[in-house]
């Protein structure tokens, strides 16, 4: 039987309690139908043999009571999710997930959840219980065989973390690793679990919630914070976007909103969009730390502040070969992102024969005669370029703007792009493209190509549209590979996989530091949650199993019999 959190004595006490309850109901169940009769002189004579059931009299219909008791006990057993005894019970494993995400940061919520879990664990064999802390990271805090006092010590002074819930991910992970036997998972916390996740779990994994979710009632927080290149197109400026969401009925006007960069209040106007969305235009991208804070005491404090490191966007240092100055100087001078220098360039633009700049660390745009380069454009990348990357790459270089057909027709040569894997980025193209033969230099696509290529080749610090705790890092806006460093400087994503910041705070990259913040929708009542709450402590879960189905059918049969007996007068 699946009375997961109840001892044998508790089970027997429950049955005794039900029996007493049914007895009480049976005693109290005196529903007389008033019937006028011509005389009751004959009924009086039988009264001695058929006394009415009164409060303290013995049951005259003991079997009727027993039938009722049997129905109630069968229902009790059915709702306790009975399984075949002895078949799999020994293989059952219990996993208790302690939700330590930000939603548990409401006052005393986390502590009450811990207390409930400790109480439940006391009734389970120590060899079968396993407790996982599900915060920014998932870590075991009690493994099978450990005493409960160990868990208490580990959870002492612990507090929930400012991270989104990982309960769903952990359930999916447990589902993938579930072996033979039943895996009984109990969730202690308020993080929602969607029906989609539950459907993905294997049949031998049974998940329940320890108690009803306590949703936030009075809360507002920063749910989104991001940055993008300025819509005005001004070089070195960015726009900021943020979204404030609250529980139902919460009004933003009751909060004080503060926007600061490196402690200085922002002077730019905040443009309010609909539904709690805001924009701030033309913020200088100087790498400052942006902070958005809501000042009010609500249910959850951790989502009242969000921080983000603004990008550091500086002009690209470009050295232009003498042989190309006449042809390209006017284009580069018009680009505000370009600073023409003679020393320490980020990008060198030269002809193939200008060999004085070959050995520098700068990246190159090389104009090569057609006779020495088969393809019109040769692009060297540091990474393997698949189809998806190729599309982004052509866009990044502005090659998607080129009218290749027209160029090929006017130049009498096919226009081709070739990719090469190399240790450094670089672009090589025909020097003849600068001539009138190909009608490229005079086209609208040429300055775009030059500007974008220079930016792609520059070594600007990587920056991201947003950095949210628990969410996968987006693509770097500069296209440069960004690697996250651990505390000791070790690259955490050495394989190049995109990572998620585990907690709010500084996120170190090879090139610079970012700031990750909690950006989490408020967990209100509207959030979908399909996780069933167990019926009662010790009563297991309401999960229809084969045994339960048969028991319920039996109960229905007994109820029909009882009804039939009542109708035919064989049972009062």
């Amino acid at each position, binding site marked *: 039987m699946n009375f997961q959190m109840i001892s044998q004595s508790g089970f027997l006490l429950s049955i005794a309690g039900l029996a007493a309850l049914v007895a009480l109901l049976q005693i109290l169940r*005196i*529903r*007389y*139908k*008033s*019937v*006028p*009769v*011509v*005389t*009751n*002189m*004959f*009924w*009086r*004579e*039988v*009264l001695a*043999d*058929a006394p*009415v*059931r009164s409060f303290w009299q013995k049951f*005259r*219909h003991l079997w009727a009571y027993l039938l009722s008791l049997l129905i109630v006990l069968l229902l009790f057993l059915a709702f306790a999710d009975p399984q075949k005894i002895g078949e799999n019970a020994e293989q059952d494993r219990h996993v208790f997930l302690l939700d330590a995400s930000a939603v548990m940061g409401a006052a005393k919520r986390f502590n009450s959840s811990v207390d409930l879990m400790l109480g439940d664990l006391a009734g389970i064999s120590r060899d079968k219980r396993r407790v996982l802390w599900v915060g920014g990271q998932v870590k075991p805090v009690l493994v099978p065989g450990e005493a409960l006092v160990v868990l208490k010590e580990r959870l002492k002074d612990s507090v929930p973390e400012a991270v989104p819930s990982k309960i769903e991910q952990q359930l999916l992970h447990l589902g993938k690793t579930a072996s033979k036997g039943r895996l009984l998972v109990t969730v202690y916390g308020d993080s929602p679990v969607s029906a989609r996740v539950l459907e993905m779990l294997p049949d031998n994994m049974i998940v329940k919630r320890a108690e009803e979710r306590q949703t936030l009632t009075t809360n507002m927080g920063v749910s989104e914070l991001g940055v993008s290149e300025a819509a005005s197109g001004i070089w070195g400026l960015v726009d900021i976007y943020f979204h404030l969401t609250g529980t139902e009925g919460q009004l933003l006007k009751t909060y004080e909103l503060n926007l600061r960069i490196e402690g200085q209040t922002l002077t730019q106007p905040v443009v309010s969009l609909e539904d709690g969305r805001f924009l701030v235009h033309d913020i200088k991208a100087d790498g400052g730390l942006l902070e958005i804070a809501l000042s009010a005491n609500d249910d959850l404090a951790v989502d009242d502040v969000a921080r983000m490191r603004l990008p550091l966007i500086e002009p690209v240092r470009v050295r232009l070969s003498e042989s190309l100055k006449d042809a390209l100087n006017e284009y580069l001078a018009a680009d505000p992102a370009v600073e023409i220098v003679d020393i320490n360039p980020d990008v060198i633009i030269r002809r193939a024969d200008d060999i004085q700049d070959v050995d520098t660390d700068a990246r190159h745009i090389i104009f090569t005669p057609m006779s020495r380069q088969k393809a019109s454009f040769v692009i060297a990348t540091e990474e393997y370029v698949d189809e998806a990357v190729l599309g982004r790459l052509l866009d990044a270089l502005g090659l998607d703007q080129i009218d290749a057909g027209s160029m090929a027709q006017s130049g009498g040569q096919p226009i081709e792009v070739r990719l090469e894997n190399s240790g450094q980025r670089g672009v090589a193209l025909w020097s003849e493209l600068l001539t009138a033969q190909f009608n490229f230099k005079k086209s609208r696509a040429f300055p775009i190509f030059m500007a974008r290529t220079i930016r792609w080749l520059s070594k600007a610090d990587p920056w991201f549209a947003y950095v949210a705790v628990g969410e996968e890092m987006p693509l770097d806006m500069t296209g440069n590979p960004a690697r996250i460093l651990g505390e000791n400087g070790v690259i955490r994503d050495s394989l190049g996989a995109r990572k998620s910041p585990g907690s709010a705070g500084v996120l170190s990259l090879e090139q610079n530091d970012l700031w990750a913040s909690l950006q989490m929708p408020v967990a209100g009542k509207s959030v979908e949650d399909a996780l069933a709450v167990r019926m009662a402590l010790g009563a297991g879960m309401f999960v229809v199993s084969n045994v339960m189905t048969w028991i319920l059918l039996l109960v229905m049969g007994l109820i029909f019999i009882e009804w039939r007996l*009542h109708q*035919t*007068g*064989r049972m*009062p």
Partner: protein
Amino acid sequence: MATFDDLFDPDFLQALQRFQLLVRQVPKGGRYAEQASKSMGQGMEFRDFKPYNAGDDLRAIDWNIYRRLGRVFIKLFEEQRDLPIYIMPDISASMFMEESPRIKPALQCALAFATVGLSQHDNVTLLPFSHDLHMPVKAGAGKAGLMGFARRLSDISSGSTTDLPGAVRKFSGMSVRRGLLVVISDFFDGNGVDEVIKSLSNCRHNLLLVQLVKNSDVIPDHLGDVRLVDCENGDAIELSITPDVLKKYRQAYDGFNKKLADFVLTRNAQLVKIDADQDILPQLTPLFQSSGESGRMHA
């Protein structure tokens, strides 16, 4: 409740004309009528001979016997007198209850007895009773009084409780001529059947008990936990009725009927059971002795 039209149904009354009421023993006294009495007198029916004594009516001498035997005998004739008929219909609340109340067949029975009695020039007196005996109503002599009698019956309204012993005692205390007492009732008396029998035993009249019964008396259709409320006194008893309980009820009901039956046997009275849900006329017919097209009922 029976209306006047219900009671004074021409077909019903026509059918009653065929019947004649005949009592086994007509009390002495009274006026000349059609009941054969034990008294010898100036009747039409020859009864016996007796030797002449001084003072006998010379008109009764049988001269044929005198011629043959030389002795003087007097012919004795059966004297026909009237029979006082006292009809006591039960008008307690129980008679008015149920979907088809017993009061209608009860009053029809009363009218039947009155019709037959009046057609035989008997004295008919109506004595309704419930918790007490109501004021006696004497029907007009002869068939002319029948309509008035029916109107009296139709005017009867429901009484309260049943006290048949009290009513019989009160009636016995009246100084009326002995006659036939017809009690029409369900005999459901709160005093108990023993008390009813005791009171009837002390009654000096000939007794004819008409018991109105129903199938529901024999097999009640109540089951389960019920509060049975007596329609007459409002007393309620609470019972859990099961088939076993019904069996015991049946035993009690049969015991009640047996006591009534035993009583009429020992008292030389008569008990007639009338099913209140059926037409009463066919049920009354067997009670009357056939005489050509007419019938005479022995009481």
